[in-house]
């Protein structure tokens, strides 16, 4: 048949037809390439993002230290002379640290030069010596050798983020003279690059070399604990009610529409709700994980409800009918059979929504979790900050040293998110069942 048609009109065999076909194939290839390009664009963006963060941030996990031998003289460390903790706390450790770095470079004597030399040390040096002495007061009167951090811009120079031309041009907070001292110390083998335990174990600081993520990590954990404690039971109960018991009427419809819309409300609006209702009206403490957790709980609630309902819906009706047939009440059907079967799915959804809440920043800004907080929070009513807000704060800091700290904090945050997602995927893979 086709042969006949073709011979009569030539519609599919002529040169024109061949051109048309070639054009169609070309447009097919273009379309395909365009699609491929879109995917590649997204992949490239992801890789660029991760590359920038990691290449900026991995060096924050090491820090530049200088080895000093500190003489803990009793008159400086213990002015009271009674070895009491409060007295020891007030000791002049800054002076001890200064004398220690002076001992490293005894040839520096002029007052001006000494001031520059002292500037090499981070403020953390005296704190570290103090902590050592407080832990072990018997050190007073002896000399201890320890590694103390250098100031941030010297650290940046060691890591290659500041070059000599910056220093010569006055674009860094290191003077050429300080650089000279640094090099002398390096020649003596006193400069070392070590793993930065301080970064993972301390709170925020104005000095980049002393800033750490531990405080905000604890804040995040406390906040998420509140979120989990509120959102999980509420979410599962709502999902069970809506999926298993709710009569089909306009009130149920209203609740459903409401939940779907709530899931798409911008997160910052939840922050406004938290500010107006929880802080102003109920008087919850500002900047506290309690208020933050409540706000994040309300934000994750609709996501948990939607995920839980999907998990409940995936349990086949035959399970319910079988249980009913054996005389179980409707509540028993749910609590003994449907809910346990749906639990892996519900948990997966909950973990994912918590991961989402962990990365959330905007609503927490509204309830004052942006304060500069050095201490690690001990309870849910202490002032605290969370990891993403810490990132936001550091990203705004002008000091050069904070760029790598910000990137490193992002790496810590992404590691947490990765871990939570891994758990969720594990749960899904392990307990997923096809009915």
């Amino acid at each position, binding site marked *: 048949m086709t042969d006949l048609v073709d011979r009569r009109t030539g519609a599919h065999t002529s040169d024109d037809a061949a051109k048309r076909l070639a054009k169609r194939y070309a447009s097919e290839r273009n379309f395909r390439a365009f699609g491929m390009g879109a995917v590649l664009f997204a992949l490239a963006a*992801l890789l660029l993002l991760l590359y920038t963060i990691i290449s900026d941030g991995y060096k924050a996990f090491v820090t530049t230290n200088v080895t000093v031998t500190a003489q803990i003289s009793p008159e400086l460390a213990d002015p009271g002379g009674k070895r009491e903790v409060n007295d020891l706390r007030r000791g002049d450790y800054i002076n001890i640290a200064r004398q220690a770095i002076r001992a490293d470079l005894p040839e520096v004597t002029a007052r001006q030069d000494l001031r520059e030399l002292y500037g090499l040390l981070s403020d953390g040096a005296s704190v570290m010596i103090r902590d050592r002495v407080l832990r072990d007061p018997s050190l007073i009167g002896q000399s201890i050798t320890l590694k103390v951090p250098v100031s941030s811009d010297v650290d940046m120079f060691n890591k290659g983020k500041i070059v000599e031309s910056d220093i010569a041009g006055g674009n860094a907070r290191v003077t050429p003279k300080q650089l000279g001292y640094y090099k002398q110390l390096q020649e003596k083998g006193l400069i070392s690059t070590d793993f930065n335990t301080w970064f993972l174990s301390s709170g925020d600081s104005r000095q980049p070399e002393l800033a750490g993520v531990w405080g905000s990590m604890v804040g995040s954990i406390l906040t998420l604990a509140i979120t989990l404690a509120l959102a999980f039971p509420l979410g599962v109960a709502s999902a069970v009610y809506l999926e298993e018991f709710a009569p089909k009427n306009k009130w149920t419809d209203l609740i459903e529409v409401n939940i779907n819309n709530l899931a798409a409300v911008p997160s910052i609006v939840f922050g406004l709700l938290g500010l107006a209702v929880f802080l102003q009206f109920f008087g919850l403490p500002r900047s506290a994980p309690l208020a933050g957790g409540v706000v994040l709980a309300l934000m994750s609630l609709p996501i948990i409800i939607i995920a839980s309902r999907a998990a409940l819906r995936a349990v086949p009706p035959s399970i319910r009918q079988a249980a009913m047939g054996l005389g179980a009440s409707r509540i028993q059907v749910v609590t003994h059979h449907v809910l346990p079967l749906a639990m892996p799915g519900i948990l997966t959804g909950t973990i994912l929504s918590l991961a989402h809440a962990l990365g959330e920043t*905007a609503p927490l800004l*509204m309830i004052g979790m942006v304060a500069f907080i050095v201490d690690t929070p001990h309870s849910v009513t202490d002032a605290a900050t969370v990891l993403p807000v810490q990132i*936001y704060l550091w990203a705004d800091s002008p000091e050069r040293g904070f760029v790598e700290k910000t990137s490193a904090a992002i790496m810590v945050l992404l590691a947490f998110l990765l871990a939570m997602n891994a758990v969720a995927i594990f749960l899904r893979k392990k307990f997923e069942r096809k009915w």
Partner: protein
Amino acid sequence: MPPSVVFLTLAILATVGFLMGRRRAVGLASGPGALHSLPGYYGYYVAVWCGIPALLLAVVWLTAQGPIVRALVEAAHPALFASRSVSEASLVWSDLFNLISGVKAAGTASQDLLGAATQYSNLLSISHAALAVIALALAIAGMAYARGRISPTMRARNAVERFLMWALLACSIVAVLTTLGIVLSLLFEAMRFFGKYPLLDFIFGTEWSPQTAIRSDQAGSSGSFGFLPLLYGTMMITVIAMIIAVPVGLMSAIYMADYATPRIRSIAKPALEVLAGIPSVVYGFFAALTVAPAIRNMGQSLGLDVAGESALAAGLVMGIMIVPYVSSLADDVIHAVPQSLRHGAYGLGSTKSETIRQVVLPAALPGIVAAVMLAVSRAIGETMIVAMAAGLAAGDFDFNPLKAVTTITVQIATLLVGDQEFDSPKTLSVFALGLVLFCVTLTLNFIALRVVRKYREKYD
């Protein structure tokens, strides 16, 4: 007795009630089948009567005690609080709290403040003691009542299940209450703002400079709250984001659905999910630190004047952030188009791309429009990227993507941070902006969700 101990005691009492109720039920049963319900239900029955009323009372009490105690202290110390504005009173209060928590040394405080602080602590401890007594008495009374009602013919399971049903219903109402809370708090504060600043000036004003005078005699800083510059900035960034996100998201969804080999899909799909899982603050950092300087340098080498916080940088990064969102929504929509339509097109000799462009996409169009609307609403509500990479000052209306603009969310995030006082137009304006944001996103979502649902029904 602090509230936490009260809650702990209530939990212990409820457990005791459970054990007691179960034991009594077992003791009353004369033989198998003599009880109406399983013994555990009698236990739960007692536990509910013991724990729940006391718990509710404690929650209400703790919510109400703060304002009441504060009002009592304010009434008793007119020297400190009378004839002071709200913000001044809140300063006195924060002084007082510092005094109580020991941040402020007692020696530095005035006699009045010391007296008020002592009274406040006393009232609070009286309230806590009263709560402990009343709540525990209520718990024990509930336990005794419920235990007394236990008999073999009593329908404990039905009672417990009825309670559970109500509890479930109450939980599902929390979501509604949240919406109500959002609407009411936004409306209430926005009304206060519009009491100080005319509504029409807000909607049609072309100048946004929220810095109000701190002292009343300061000249020329009454603050103007014209909403249009923010709307312009928001739209500008949203449009740039959509120019990136819609084609890339849609095309990658199409490619993954119809072209990609399983191998490519197994790489690309998780990658897109990772992109979706990265917190927005990370994108903000990326925009501010990498993309904005790059665009600036590129512009300078082309001889263009690019602002350090250009709308282009923020929009570009926001577009990247929204790509996975668009692609996953589009993926759902494309999969919902019945296979028979595709087979029909293939049967007529169309190529794959012709099928997609002329059959699948038109059929999926309503869903795609809904997906774009959801993406737009997401872009409008996004805060961190713009807070970190877009400007603070309102831009000119010249549609130049290389200039800095400011958005609704940036203003919300920057005007309220670190601010305590709640009666200046500057802070109240934030709630008006929040209300606008909420209404716009709600409308977009509502329409989009309706379209999606209607469309799904058509093909199911």
